[in-house]
């Protein structure tokens, strides 16, 4: 079956009224999650995961994915109107989006962000349609050594791309890998670090760790008294940008879409990194870099397009290889697994309805989001009027319920609380929790494929350089590590250091 026929099959699934309803629900919840500060897409997806247990696979994944890319749309609203990023990927939008709002161009900024997000999201889905199936076919050649090398590359790439230092990122990834070894060893049956707690025999779940680090941890780091709520509410007739503003946003949207999609394919918090990279790129390419920070249209159009394209790009390795590039795709993989559908190279052929239905629903979802985010912006702004003192207890309640409902395990909820405290501590000491979650997610696959590779080769480490695909991946790892070491030796500030400066300075 060719791509067009497959896509038509997907639309026949995605346009069924009940699937459309769940796509809409996902987009709506995602927009609200994006609008509300302190609740990221990860918390939103994790909390609603138990609610999908009664649905079929397609509806579940369509709704959860809608929350993910919907939150990218919604995140821009608070950034532009309040200078509070609804979620981390919208940090860069705060700078010029809020400056535009102060100049009376809030409506135009929202419109450019929404249109840019739509263009980028649609571009991302087209690329996903074209790339994922052949990549899945290629990935059928992967054995344990290739998976080991690929996962290693993922961790090194994440560390290299990270705006914090390489040792800090790898330290966090190691912490995650270590947490991932808790529980029964699948190969030998040994109990590891379970301290006679039966629930720990199955290991530590992704959901309690992710919700603890990103949901509760964020709340603990946010003192309620410091939340200033000054909302600039735009009028509907002010939503259309001027001709000049459209002209200034066309190329940043195009560049942001391409850059975002490419970054989205890589491990890490791609939707966050892509918006920082896009902002830097636009400022560098601009004829008027001095306007950045004072309401530059490109400073809104580029990052907003990039973070949406990246969130779609992240679905390519998830669907084609079964590999999570970050905590959000990891939870989506968990959702598929709960429904007995393992994502990976076999997904396209064995579950075409799920794969193509999901892809087609994203085309529809992006249109829904455009319709939701422009005319209804006034309604979403009202959500922001909920005082934080009432909002965060609500989030804590959903964190507890969401985590508990996954396995009906109170131990999971205690783990969430502990991880919330850990997340608070990590933030205090400038350590990024995202690599920890990624380490936890890949730990079982990484360990299994590493040990299988060694058993296959009778203990010969050179198996990783004897097989062509693994050798190329290992060579890229070595190259990235060498580049990182070189920048330390030269003690020169490269783009990542500048990104970190932007993140800590302008973003705050």
């Amino acid at each position, binding site marked *: 079956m060719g791509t067009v026929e497959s896509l038509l099959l997907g639309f026949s699934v995605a346009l069924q009224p009940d699937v459309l309803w769940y796509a809409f629900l996902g987009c709506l919840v995602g927009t609200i999650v994006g609008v509300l500060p302190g609740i990221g897409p990860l918390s939103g997806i994790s909390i609603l995961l138990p609610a999908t247990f009664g649905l079929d696979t397609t509806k579940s994944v369509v709704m959860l994915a809608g929350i993910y890319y919907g939150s990218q749309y919604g995140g821009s609203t608070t950034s532009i109107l309040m200078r509070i990023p609804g979620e981390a990927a919208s940090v860069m939008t705060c700078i010029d989006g809020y400056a535009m709002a102060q100049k009376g161009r809030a409506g135009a900024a929202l419109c450019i962000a929404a249109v840019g997000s739509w263009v980028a999201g649609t571009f991302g889905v087209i690329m996903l349609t074209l790339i994922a199936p052949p990549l899945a076919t290629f990935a059928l050649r992967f054995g344990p050594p290739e998976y080991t090398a690929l996962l290693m590359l993922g961790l090194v790439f994440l560390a290299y791309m990270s705006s914090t230092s390489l040792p800090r990122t*790898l330290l966090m990834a190691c912490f995650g890998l270590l947490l991932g070894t808790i529980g029964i060893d699948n190969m030998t049956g040994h109990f590891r670090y379970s301290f006679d707690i039966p629930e720990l025999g199955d290991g530590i779940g992704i959901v309690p760790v992710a919700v603890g680090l990103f949901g509760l941890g964020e709340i*603990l780091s946010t003192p309620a008294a410091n939340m200033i709520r000054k909302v600039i509410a735009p009028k509907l007739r002010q939503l259309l940008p001027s001709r000049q503003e459209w002209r200034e946003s066309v190329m940043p949207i195009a560049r942001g879409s391409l850059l975002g999609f490419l970054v989205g394919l890589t491990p890490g918090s791609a939707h966050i990194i892509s918006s920082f990279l896009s902002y830097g790129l636009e400022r560098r390419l601009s004829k008027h870099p001095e306007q950045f920070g004072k309401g530059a249209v490109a400073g809104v159009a580029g990052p907003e397009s990039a973070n949406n394209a990246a969130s779609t790009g992240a679905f390519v390795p998830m669907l084609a290889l079964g590999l999570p590039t970050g905590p959000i795709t990891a939870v989506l993989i968990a959702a598929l697994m709960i429904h007995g559908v393992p994502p990976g190279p076999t997904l396209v052929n064995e579950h075409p309805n799920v794969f193509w239905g999901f892809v087609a629903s994203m085309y529809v979802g992006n249109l829904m989001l455009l319709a939701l985010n422009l005319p209804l912006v006034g309604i979403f702004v009202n959500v922001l009027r909920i005082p934080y003192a*009432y909002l965060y207890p609500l989030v804590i309640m959903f964190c507890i319920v969401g985590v508990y409902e996954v396995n009906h395990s109170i131990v999971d909820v205690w783990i969430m609380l502990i991880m919330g405290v850990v997340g608070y501590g990590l933030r205090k000491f400038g350590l990024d929790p995202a690599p920890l979650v990624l380490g936890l997610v890949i730990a079982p696959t990484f360990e299994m494929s590493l040990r299988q590779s060694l058993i296959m080769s009778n203990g010969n480490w050179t198996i990783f350089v004897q097989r062509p695909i693994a050798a190329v991946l290992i060579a890229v790892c070595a190259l990235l590590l060498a580049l990182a070491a070189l920048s330390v030796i030269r003690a020169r500030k490269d783009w990542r250091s500048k990104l970190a400066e932007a993140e800590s300075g302008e973003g705050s």
Partner: protein
Amino acid sequence: MTLRTDHIAGGVFVALGLAVLALSGDLPVGTLSFPGAGMMPKLVAGLMILFGLLLIVRAGESAPLASLPWGDLTHAARIVAITAVAIALYQPLGFVVTMVLLLFTLTFGAERRPLFAAAAFSVGVVALTYLLFAVVLKTPLEPGILGF
């Protein structure tokens, strides 16, 4: 010498790595041709110690420990304590009672919101959430002593 944030962060992870190695005594490392259950944790703990030491060595680049703001600590500790009590009560008391108590304690007790507003918010939100999960989404919530 000024104590810096990375001295503490690195030190904590070195200690954690050493603790993992100490706890892994009975886990077999195995051989290269048949790695055991202890290989991966010990390897990763070793790497964690290495990166922790690197952090300590390069701690000069980090902020002085004394400059860390701790103004939010009391608020955070209060939330953790209240949440911990709620978790402990969740299975015995069930969703409805525990969550009403949690929301009320946080809004009225921790955030000093007006009594009636906090009470109405707590009861209203829990009722709506219960309806959403139990009736609309057909996902039963923890019943507890009240039986629902």
